[in-house]
């Protein structure tokens, strides 16, 4: 999404990334502005997480350029599957990790304590400050890592599969929270596998499978043609309450391998 009037936070120009000889992203052109709330969709191994890492700055492209706004602050919320839930940290300790610079003493200052409390209160989890991160619900766990990212006062929040493995109520909770944060002036880019529960509710989508195969609003992107090119599978698009609903179009005749039941 390019906007002539809004300055871009990050701009990717013909970015190609590879792990060894295997290309993961090819000639990706994308730009993210401060008013952005984008979802990156695509099948497993399509380069979604790599794209987030490029935006984060931990993966360098082998070709192309990444231009960041000067002094850009980026927050990152990892996938819950990537978090070591056995690690001995309380909610407050986890959030305070975002402050590694400026203060060398191990314990938090009064100012830091107040900041952590304020962010936890903003996200409705102040009462959980002393709890271990494992002893939380899925939605609360997401809020802890969002709180850690917010403590760095980011302009751009990157989230890797924020609704993976959560129930419907938690997904709604996360969507509402992200919507609030976006309306508060935060640009958000997230990856998701969930086309109906998550992607269809976002204002902007990028369809990715090594290269960008489509971008725009859910109505523009969630089409049978774009999705077939992205996922390599045929899908049908229905409409419900003005929103596109993606359903699998499974045709047994497409099966290459037929399963035969043994005759009685």
């Amino acid at each position: 999404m390019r906007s002539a009037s809004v300055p871009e936070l990050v701009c990717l120009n013909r970015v190609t990334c590879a792990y060894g000889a295997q290309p993961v992203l090819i000639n990706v052109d994308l730009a993210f502005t401060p008013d952005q709330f984008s979802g990156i969709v695509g099948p497993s191994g399509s380069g979604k997480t790599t794209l987030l890492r490029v935006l984060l700055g931990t993966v360098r492209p082998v070709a192309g350029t990444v231009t960041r706004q000067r002094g850009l602050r980026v927050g990152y919320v990892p996938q819950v599957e990537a978090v070591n839930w056995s690690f001995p940290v309380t909610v407050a300790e986890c959030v305070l990790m975002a402050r590694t610079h400026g203060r060398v003493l191990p314990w938090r200052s009064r100012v830091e304590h107040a900041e952590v409390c304020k962010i936890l209160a903003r996200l409705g989890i102040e009462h959980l400050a002393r709890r271990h991160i494992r002893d939380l619900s899925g939605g609360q766990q997401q809020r802890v890592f969002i709180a850690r990212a917010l403590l760095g006062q980011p302009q751009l929040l990157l989230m890797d599969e924020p609704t993976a493995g959560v129930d419907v109520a938690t997904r709604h909770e996360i969507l509402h929270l992200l919507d609030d944060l976006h309306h508060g002036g935060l640009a958000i880019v997230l990856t998701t596998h969930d086309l109906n529960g998550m992607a269809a509710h976002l204002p902007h989508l990028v369809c990715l499978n090594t290269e960008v195969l489509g971008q725009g609003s859910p109505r523009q992107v969630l089409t049978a043609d774009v999705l077939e090119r992205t996922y390599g599978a045929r899908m049908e698009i229905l409409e419900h309450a003005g929103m596109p609903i993606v359903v699998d179009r499974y045709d047994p005749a497409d099966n290459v391998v037929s399963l035969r039941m043994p005759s009685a």
Partner: protein
Amino acid sequence: MDDLLRPFEFEFFRNGLIVATFAGALCGLVGVYVVLKGMSYIGHGLSHAIFGGFAASALLGVNFALGAGVWGVASALMINGVTRRRVIGADAAIGVITTASFALGLALFALFGRRGRSFDAALFGSILGVAQEDVWAIIAITALVTVVVFFGYRSLLFTTFDPEVAEASGVRTARVDALLMLVLAMSILATMQVLGVTLIAATLVIPATVARMLTNSFSRMLLLSTIIGAVTGFVGMNLSYHLDVQSGPTIVLVGATLFAAVFAITGTRGLRRTVGIHEHAASGVAPTPAHGP
């Protein structure tokens, strides 16, 4: 009572007790990072690798701290480089480097005989060879490591828990990892005399594991593990004298007994806290998160 206090009349015992207590505290402190980063195997391997340097310095007549120190630092940096590159399996590469170094030490002793410091003491630990300079060395290294952990607390915590986000947040994780390996090498060098290379890994792992079973807070785990390590060293060294068993095995057995006692008290609740730590840190695959209560 007199029997209990009798060994304190001997200088060698007093020296050994100080070194064992500080060695326990040092290993307890460093062991927290070793356990949480899934580096137990590295700690075990590094102690064996340093044995090669020990043998070489003993035979060449080079100062032990210098010879084994250079060898240990080189091994630590090599292991750190191998684990970060991941061209081949890190555990396999570490196994090659460390066992080759250990084997070299054994071969050197076999070929040229046992000179200088005791061969058995290096393997299993002994208080008999503890000199006054060893006492000062362990105190100095414990102080140095404490300073590193104190001022590097935030970077070390972030890198240990979430290296990718730490790096993205401006923490130089490669330097932090290298620093941790150097601290580990120094700790092994300083404690080798009392604990022995074959048993150092246990003193790195047991206090931290026991502490993890007792707390969910990282800062409290650091403190508890250090105290548990010191107490284990102190009690183990006293028992070593009275039972006439080498110091290394006695200290490890005291630690193992403490582990069993804490496990009996905390039950599965305590053990559950430690589940997944090693697997996650070593493989990068997380244990299934508990979406409860």
